[in-house]
């Protein structure tokens, strides 16, 4: 018994010591606390302002908080930064946990260690369930309760009128029930983080087992981005309300689609069955037996996969590019990445997925379009991130091809930009085609076009972040870059949807250009090895 505990502890430590994981968990935990505390302060600030300037002693506090209030980046009880950061952090953390779990389980050394399966599976499960899902709930709820139960009464003691203003509907504020209800709201948010993490975990797990067909992973990115974007706390609220009553919603394969209504029973069953088969196959693979998938239509599926595989082949280049122009050379450097055809295939499959969405959803078309836009915001950035950050280790080798350092940096940068631009274009087309099919009236809405404009400008910022991440040689660059990318994309598109001015998008684009220029300058001077 004792040895197993030790082994579990050792396995947990391998996760905890991973710097990427530590950074992601820090983001998940720290930013929500900060946001919730500032949200509480903003509430107080607004109230004080409403009461007038008689309370001079409180003026320094207002002075601090005022500029932030004007920026309106943090909305009471509806914080987009909170959501985006937690989303980004949990996605990255989930990816890292699953990836490490897979590495450990498939490692030959681990297999020869006695009793490796138990701790090897238990540790990532603990991480996923307790640390990622539950931590979000408890920290969020706890922070809110601290703000509510701690700060507010303190202010009320100093400013007696506040009590009347806030708690005008009775002395409810000071009762436990109110605290619990507020905490409940944040528990719901935590649940949405849980669903996000678990979805990502399932997708990454699926990808890692079909590594030979790497493009499956790239296609899964828009799908999982879509699901994560829709795990809003508003919807999660609904889920949380159902917890004591409806066991069906605890099926792990359902959690990803947490807003499916109860009359979607056939869908639930289908997803569960597919999931169970998949898990069975995964288990067989881990146990060392290479079993072919025993599903109906296995042969046509195999042929289709082989065809898609062949279309992802790198095309043959014609002749030497030494004398070609910059654009040709950049295109040549793209060949090793996902290449042009692959971009459009990913875009095409995303279109099909988005075009068939209404079969899956029963929500109103407004939020459906919004969720499609969110996907288009997150997915290209993630795909490009995954493909290009994987090429970092071979940059030194590539830099010795005939080209000056400056030319090499320029061409590689152009290649990243071209990949990003094409993939964004492909996903935007997917959104538009989906809209044209199902809700053509939305095309005339300004909201759609301003959001698309913001999306385009956001991609400039994304490019800047990518350029810096590719240049940097630290291992934390990948997780941090991914978190930033998700936050930035999601945040700006959401705000544009809700009517923020285009100037925000322009500021983001300018920041992106500055980052790209800085990365370019540093890249030309950096040690590449």
């Amino acid at each position: 018994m004792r040895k197993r505990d030790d082994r579990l502890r050792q396995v947990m430590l391998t996760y905890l010591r991973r710097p990427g994981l530590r950074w992601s968990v820090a983001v998940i935990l720290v930013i929500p606390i900060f946001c919730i505390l500032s949200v509480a302060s903003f509430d107080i600030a607004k109230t004080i302002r409403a009461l007038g300037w008689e309370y001079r002693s409180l003026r320094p506090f207002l002075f601090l908080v005022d500029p932030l209030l004007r920026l309106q980046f943090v909305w009471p009880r509806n914080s987009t930064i909170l959501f985006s950061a937690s989303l980004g952090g949990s996605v990255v953390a989930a990816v890292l946990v699953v990836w490490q779990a897979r590495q450990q389980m498939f490692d030959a050394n681990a297999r020869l260690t006695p009793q490796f399966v138990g701790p090897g599976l238990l540790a990532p499960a603990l991480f996923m369930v307790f640390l990622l899902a539950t931590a979000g709930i408890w920290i969020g709820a706890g922070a809110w309760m601290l703000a509510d139960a701690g700060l507010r009464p303190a202010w009320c003691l100093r400013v007696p009128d506040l009590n009347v203003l806030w708690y005008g509907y009775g002395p409810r504020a000071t009762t436990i029930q109110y605290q619990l209800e507020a905490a409940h709201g944040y528990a719901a948010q935590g649940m949405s983080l849980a669903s996000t993490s678990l979805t990502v975990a399932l997708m990454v797990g699926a990808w890692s087992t079909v590594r030979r067909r790497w493009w499956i992973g790239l296609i899964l990115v828009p799908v999982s981005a879509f699901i994560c974007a829709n795990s809003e706390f508003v919807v999660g609220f609904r889920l949380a309300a159902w917890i004591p009553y409806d066991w069906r919603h605890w099926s792990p394969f359902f959690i990803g689609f947490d807003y499916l209504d109860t009359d979607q029973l056939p869908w639930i069953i289908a997803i569960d069955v597919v999931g169970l088969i998949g898990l069975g196959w995964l288990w067989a693979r881990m146990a060392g037996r290479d079993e072919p998938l025993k599903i109906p239509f296995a042969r046509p599926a195999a042929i289709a996969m082989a065809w898609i595989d062949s279309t992802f082949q790198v095309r043959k280049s014609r002749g030497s590019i030494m004398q070609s122009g910059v654009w040709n050379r950049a295109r040549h450097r793209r060949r090793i990445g996902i290449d042009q055809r692959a971009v459009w295939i990913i875009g095409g499959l995303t279109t099909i997925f988005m075009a068939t969405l209404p079969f899956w959803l029963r929500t109103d078309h407004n939020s459906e379009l919004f969720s499609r836009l969110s996907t288009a915001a997150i997915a290209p950035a993630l795909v490009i991130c995954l493909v290009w950050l994987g090429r970092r280790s071979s940059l030194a080798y590539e830099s010795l091809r005939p080209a000056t350092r400056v030319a090499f940096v320029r061409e590689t940068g152009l290649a990243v930009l071209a990949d990003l631009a094409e993939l964004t274009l492909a996903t935007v087309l997917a959104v538009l085609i989906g809209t044209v099919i199902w809700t053509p009236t939305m095309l005339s809405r300004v909201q759609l076009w301003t959001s698309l404009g913001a999306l385009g400008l956001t991609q400039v910022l994304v490019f800047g972040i990518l350029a810096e991440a590719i240049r940097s040689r630290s291992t934390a660059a990948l997780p941090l870059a991914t978190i930033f990318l998700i936050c930035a994309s999601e945040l700006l598109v959401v705000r544009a949807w809700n009517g923020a001015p285009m100037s925000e998008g322009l500021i983001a684009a300018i920041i992106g250009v500055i980052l790209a220029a800085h990365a370019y300058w540093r890249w030309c001077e950096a040690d590449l090895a």
Partner: protein
Amino acid sequence: MNESPTTENSPLRLARLDKSYRKKKVLDKLDLNIAIGSVVGLLGKNGAGKTTLIKCALGLMRPDSGEATIFGKSAWTLDAETKARLGYVPQSVSLYSWMRIGQLVDYTAAFYPKWNAALVGDLLRDWELKADDKAGNLSVGTQQKLAIILAMGHEPDLLVLDEPAASLDPIARRQFLKAVLAVASDQTRTVVFSTHITSDLERVADRLALLRDGRIVYDGELDELKDSVKRWHVTAAGALPADLDVPGAVHRRIEGAEALLTVRGGTQESREEIERRYSASVRVEDLSLEDLFLELHEEEVQHAETR
């Protein structure tokens, strides 16, 4: 046989190179001059800085001070024409695992103005690499072979290899050496490779650069090193003194009436003197490169008893 290299025609030249890495000085005022047409072996302990030296020489890393030039041009700002005359095989090859070998060859070929497709085809066939295989499915040794082929396809004038044979089995290693010799037979092409495998160097290299403590402690012909450093086995009639010394002794080990001396540049006269003075017999042993390497790295041991 090799003209003395001037700055303009020297394929690789390092002058007073300094490089520190995380507060540790890896290269310390290092000087190295490679002659055209030679096959130079770079030998050094693990962690001696061979990879750092190569990377600074090729312009991948920037030295703290000093200069590195390739074909007379500064390594940091190499232009495309010079890079087209350069071939590099890194120590850890990170090939793109989803690409097929044929595609990798195509991709690499397009970068260079002249590419010998026939040579590459021959090498792929001789080394048993199929164009349809995915690079990610290959074993480490096969990946290394592929990296070597990719570096030789454009017939570079300077071929730099960082531990190229580390993962190769003996057959593959022999094939690799033959390929290097084919390059070496052309007097205008230079090969520099760093390795631990001294037997490969003995076969193929004509010059040796020994890297120790951040400096090149020997830069010259391999044969000359072998000719000049020998091990003397001294057997005397009576006990030998602890301070037994010979001009040029690198390493001494004295145990009673027997002594082992590693002597550099030892002459017949000094040998006869020892024989006379201590009424001993001296047997001269030739040292292989591996032994030489070990000898040049061991610290002096004064006396067996003091250990």
